[in-house]
């Protein structure tokens, strides 16, 4: 082995190993209950990508969906502080009226949602109450599928995927991005799908790398994904993903230049904001975190998730460049809410309607929908939804993304009116 080789090997293997050890360990610990809910630091980093891909148009809005997996307890998120039934049915786990952050008469936010409260006060948080599936299903997986497809089925395409299918122009990998390792049904269209971006990209293989032998490896990986492989559909998909990873390496690498904010959700939303700032043409972003499946010990666990949500959203808007600050709407969702009556384990079992948040300068703040009755329940003891969840999608599609909700959702749903589009162009 010559000197040059030894240097190259040392440079490539050793630092990666050292870095990997600390990164894996840190990320793992972050993702465990031990450190869940650690307060995120505010980022100072703003993306400064020199080269924009296909910037979004002046009238284009961006949507960020935040999935709260496991079934978020809506009643402890947006608390009916004025309803005695709430306190009667949840003697040990209710949020005290004096602790809740009042956003109206008899209604308050979970005490950890201080950032959201400030945005509510600024008129930029829509609180969507009583939102649910009119044919509720208490299975996590069936319910998640129904929320993701948005067309009343558990089929193969998601509502944002079908929105992508209808975007004008060619297929662009940056039209929709999900943070994580796989693309959720939500962003799977019939002809297009989102690109998944990780929370970390190491060197990657780039066709513009400094060293010719790296460039050649990159070209080889591209070539393996240059057409049909004869290995079947999965082989073709793997090969295409390998090629895409090469093609995207140079574009995404600057996003990771500075360390991401710590925190399971904050790190994802930090990256999401950098992607928007890079002006790569992204119209829809997706992040997810959890679990919200609090069958036991709800107050502590749910409180930590609420703190993560609040810190994550604060990170997102703090990271967003000023020129995009009016151009992004964030929408939260979860597959269902939870039972009104607490169980004996200080938790709540699977339920139906819940509260959602829509947040951004393009949102007309306030309370929407209606808090369902806590006493007039369905036969499983669950809330009767006041608003079909697809009305929320229709509002976002028609008023914010300027798409055709009827085409995407297969039917017409009420526009809830929480979008304030003029805010979009003023930025």
């Amino acid at each position, binding site marked *: 082995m010559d000197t040059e080789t030894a240097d190259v090997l040392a440079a490539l293997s050793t630092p990666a190993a050292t870095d*990997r050890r600390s990164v894996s360990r840190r990320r793992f610990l972050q993702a465990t209950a031990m450190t869940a809910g650690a307060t995120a630091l505010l980022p100072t980093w703003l993306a400064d990508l020199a080269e924009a891909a296909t910037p979004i148009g002046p009238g284009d809005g961006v949507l960020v969906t935040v999935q709260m997996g496991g079934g978020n307890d809506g009643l402890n998120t947006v608390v009916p502080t004025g309803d005695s039934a709430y306190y009667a049915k949840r003697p040990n786990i209710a949020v005290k009226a004096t602790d809740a952050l009042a956003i109206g008469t008899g209604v308050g936010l979970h005490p950890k949602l201080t950032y959201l409260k400030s945005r509510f006060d600024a008129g930029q948080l829509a609180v969507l109450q009583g939102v649910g599936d009119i044919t509720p299903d208490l299975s996590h997986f069936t319910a998640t599928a129904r929320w993701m497809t948005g067309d009343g089925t558990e089929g193969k395409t998601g509502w944002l995927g079908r929105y992508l299918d209808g975007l004008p122009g060619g297929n662009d990998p940056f039209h929709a991005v999900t943070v994580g390792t*796989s693309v959720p049904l939500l962003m799977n269209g019939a002809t297009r799908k989102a690109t998944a971006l*990780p929370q970390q990209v190491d060197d990657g293989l780039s066709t513009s790398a400094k060293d010719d032998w790296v460039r050649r490896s990159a070209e*080889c990986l591209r070539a393996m994904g240059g057409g049909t492989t004869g290995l079947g559909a999965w*082989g073709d998909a793997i090969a295409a993903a390998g090629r895409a990873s090469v093609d995207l390496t140079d574009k995404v690498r600057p996003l990771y230049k500075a360390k991401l904010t710590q925190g399971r959700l904050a790190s994802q939303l930090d990256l999401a904001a950098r992607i928007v700032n890079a002006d790569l043409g992204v119209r829809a972003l997706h992040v997810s975190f959890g679990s919200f499946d609090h*069958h036991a010990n709800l107050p502590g666990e749910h409180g930590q998730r609420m703190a993560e949500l609040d810190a994550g959203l604060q990170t997102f808007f703090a990271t967003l460049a000023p020129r995009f600050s009016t151009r992004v709407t964030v929408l939260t969702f979860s597959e269902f809410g939870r039972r009104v009556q*607490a*169980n*004996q384990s200080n938790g709540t079992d699977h339920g139906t309607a819940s509260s959602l948040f829509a947040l951004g300068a393009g949102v007309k703040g306030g309370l929407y929908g209606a808090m369902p009755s806590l006493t007039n329940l369905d036969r499983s003891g669950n809330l009767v939804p006041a608003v079909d969840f697809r009305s929320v999608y229709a509002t976002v599609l028609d008023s914010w993304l300027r798409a055709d909700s009827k085409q995407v959702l297969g039917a017409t749903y009420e526009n809830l009116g929480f979008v304030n589009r003029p805010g979009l162009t003023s930025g």
Partner: protein
Amino acid sequence: MPTPPLAVAHLLRRAGFGGSPAEIAALAPLDIKVIVDKVVNSSFAVPLADPPLVADKDADYWDRYVAMSSAWLERMRTAPVGPALVEKLTLFWHGHFCSSLEKVGHQAIWNQNQLFRVMGLGSFRDLAQAVAVDPAMLRYLDNDRNTKGSPNENWARESMELFTLGVNQYSQDDVVAGAKAWSGHGLDKDGRYVFTANRHDFGAKTLFGITKAWNGPEVLDEITLGDKKQTSARFIATKLWSFFAYPNPEPAVIDAVVAPYLASNLSIAALLKAIFLRPEFYGPKAKGALVRSPIEYVVAAMKGTGLGCGIAHPEWWLEGMGQQPFYPPNVSGWRQNGYWISASTQWAKTSCAGFLRWKANEGTSVLAGTQALAAPAAVRRALAQFGVDTPSASTVKAMEAWLRQERTTTKWAERPNLIMLALLSPDAQLA
């Protein structure tokens, strides 16, 4: 009758983590029935040695995790025919009867893993009963908090939907009744299973239309041995077929493998033997039908490079690929195929393969002789190193073109990059 070596190789990939050329050569002269009996062999269903760190509560959280992850993956890497299936099946059960280190302690989740190893080939009824009172599961699905008066539905629901019956095979009323039936089955202060009579609801409940004083284990017996037996058998057979052969099997195929399963008192070993003896398992529909899960991919990479967990550090790469052992994403476990394919996971695989190429180049003799071979032979040799016996024309073409170029310039980069590119080929990412 001898068995075609390609069929043997396919079986060892699916029913394990891939066979060595020597293993394949040793089995090929035998009849497929004899081979399957060697592959599915309950005498190997024995526990692994417990990694000492797992029990050491003073040790670092991450170090304890790495110790148990490495112990398991190292076993996957080195297990010969027989034990290999036990580990593959343990991986299946881990993704089926999910519990997670996120909610459960190291020792409990490790013990659950050993339970899958020891009981995974036996009776499904016995396995399900053991899982129901397994401390990790009692904690993970909150049944340790399920008491008379205000039951907790978590275990009752998921055990029917995800573990034994499937969606739409039960009602919400069955969930409520099931939760009452399982009340009182919890943990003592030392984290061991205990049935506490005064926390159990001894009253009558109506479950699947039958009203009686149901107790939890009777619910599982009703599902696995009673009127729901067929439904449950088909559910388990379909899930195993999808994991080992291909998704969405034809009903006739399931009929065929369910029969010996039911006839053998729900023996998983009998069910697996039936699966591995079906012609469809070796047919065109099975080829290329499964994407290697990240754990399978990393184990195959370690087998091919000869590097153990202590050098390859699977724990550094698996999160980015989307699968951390002992850490399923939720109670439904990992999905398959498309779930593993994205630019995101390809970057993680590139990092992993890029790291392993240097380690293999420095510390092993893997592919050491390929520089003397002509490009086509060198490429085929490299792919075969990672179990790719019939590479695609597009992969071969791309790699040959690359190698010819490489040989005209920086020769030193040939061997490490041959290892990396073979690992990144789509062929090596299929099961």
